[in-house]
């Protein structure tokens, strides 16, 4: 039982990792985006401070009362992130598609996936 149970958890974990990998980080990257993940995170952190922190809080730390706590954003759903940043959402989140390039949104995603750690 225990073995089977653990095996099930492991399989699920593997599937989750695979899913995350497919939907999260390994999507084709836009032209101009840095190759190294560390560079993307660094660039994303700076872009976040400049464009996002005045609503979502410094370093993504926010009590989450009025705007979503980005540390809780599903890390396997890049498309949702890109769509929300590009087009805005619910007439609350403003659209950034005319300000940020695809490469910049890609860098923001790399940063958001770190949970600010």
């Amino acid at each position, binding site marked *: 039982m225990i073995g089977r149970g653990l095996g099930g958890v492991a399989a699920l974990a593997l599937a989750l990792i695979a899913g995350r990998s497919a939907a999260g980080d390994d999507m084709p990257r836009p032209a101009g985006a840095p190759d190294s993940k560390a560079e993307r995170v660094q660039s994303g952190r700076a872009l976040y401070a400049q464009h996002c*922190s005045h609503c979502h809080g410094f370093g993504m*730390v926010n009590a989450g*009362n009025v705007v979503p706590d980005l540390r809780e954003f599903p890390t396997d759903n890049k498309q949702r992130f890109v769509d929300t940043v590009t087009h805005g959402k619910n007439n609350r989140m403003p659209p950034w598609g005319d300000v940020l390039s695809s490469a910049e949104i890609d860098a923001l995603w790399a940063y958001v996936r770190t949970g600010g750690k």
Partner: protein
Amino acid sequence: MKRVLAAAVAALLPLWAQAQTAGELTKGASDQHNVLNYGMGYHLQRFSLIDQINKDNVKDLVPVWNYSYDDNRSEESQPLVYNSVLYVTTNSATMAVDAKSGRQIWKTKVDYPPETPRIVCCGIINRGAALFDGKIYRTTLDANVVALDAKTGKEVWRQNAIDFKTGYSMTVAPLVADGVIITGVSGAEFGTRLFIDGWDAQTGQHLWRTYTIPGPGEPGHETWPGDTWQHGGGSTWITGSFDPELHTVYWGIGNPGPFNAAVRKGDNLYTDSILALDPKTGKIKWHYQFSPNDPFDYDSVAEMILADINVDGKPTKVVMDANRNGFFYVLDRTNGRLLAANPYVNVNWASRIDLETGRPVETEITARARAGEKVTVFPSIMGGKNWEPMSFNPQKGLAYANTLNFGGHYKAIAVEYKAGDWYLGMDLADLWDWPNGPRGYLKAIEPMTGKAKWETPSDIPRFSGVLSTAGNVVFSGQLTGEFEAFDADTGAKLWSFQTGSGIEGQPITWEQDGVQYVAVSSGIGGVYSIFSGDERLKGVPAGGSLWVFALHRK
């Protein structure tokens, strides 16, 4: 003929009932049946002579009604009351509500482009309306000034102050002074150059604009090197006070841009200053600068309270300010002469304010910050007191203010201007220096000394306005939702009620049909909840609403 006259009178009556005159606005502070002015009087004292609710019976205060704003942003608006109708704003609507029943009379939505929040620095908010001549005046986040018919909510006129896209927004409640609608602007964090405008009350025609950063050829322009004046900031987002006898408006001016002071060597007039203005022309009568060449965001927009107090035994017309820079200032409002400036919170950036020159004597902390070192400075960039308005009780000579008890880490960094982007030049990592104990105190401050007669702590600081009354009661709210009443003499807590969301509103009181009412907006989402990272607020739901209280009738 009689019939014609009767018809004419009947036609005029509703107009009379709706038409707030300049005279009524001037007497706003003593009008116990209405709340006609932002700040509960042109002097912004937020003090009421009504004493039905007093320190002995305030424990019997109960809610009368609650009105949902259908808006879950920060609710910082001060309601107005006229002839049994409350007029109140959010970022997304203007509303008229029956004062007795809490039923909505009309609601007019505010529509702004979805891009607008990109350039709003510190909360999606509005701070209230002005009432004059049958119209409600307000500003919008996308930098419009709007007049609505007070009876129907229908738009009478709308004027765009400036294109919002490069960083201009409006949250201020307009001031009506000598019949002119006066408005200010937010946006000093975006490399803007800001101003105060005058508008014709009837038509909306633009009458004047006074830039807070002087342009070429204007006095004070020499305090800005090169073209730094073009991005010099100087916001004007809190309503000024008005002395109708002196025909002078007193308006607080915000911080310079960028925060990195080395970029703009010079005094940087008129940032972090008070301007005394002629309401008809916008002409500057005098100015006083609190923090020249400020590196620390010691924005001085917050309320400039007018009072007549004894200074050295002489009755003196003064203007008072609990400045973000941690000093409590008292100036002669007839000429701008500095009378007193003493710390009301922990201050380490300046040792004192020189009363002769009016200038701060900066410490080694500020010298090191200017040299590019990382320093721990008191107060932080949130100030000794942020925007939340204090109350002045003229009977006791005390100012009741929600003060902040924390410092900040400051390091200037290089910055480049890009239209529509934050233009700060300050390292935003690791900003705060928190104390182990309370982060805020409600204090009863003596204006001439800055000393507190009493203080009552709060672990999470209060960001609510304060109201005091002749009933010896002080009202204020908590970010955790409690609306509270305190003994004006001791600071002892007398009553508390949970409003369901955090309070960042501005309490008011009025009397109708023999009953004293107290109202406050509830709704979290302002500057502290965004920038502090204080996760103790996680359990406080958003959700704006208006609460009205009165004594329980036995």
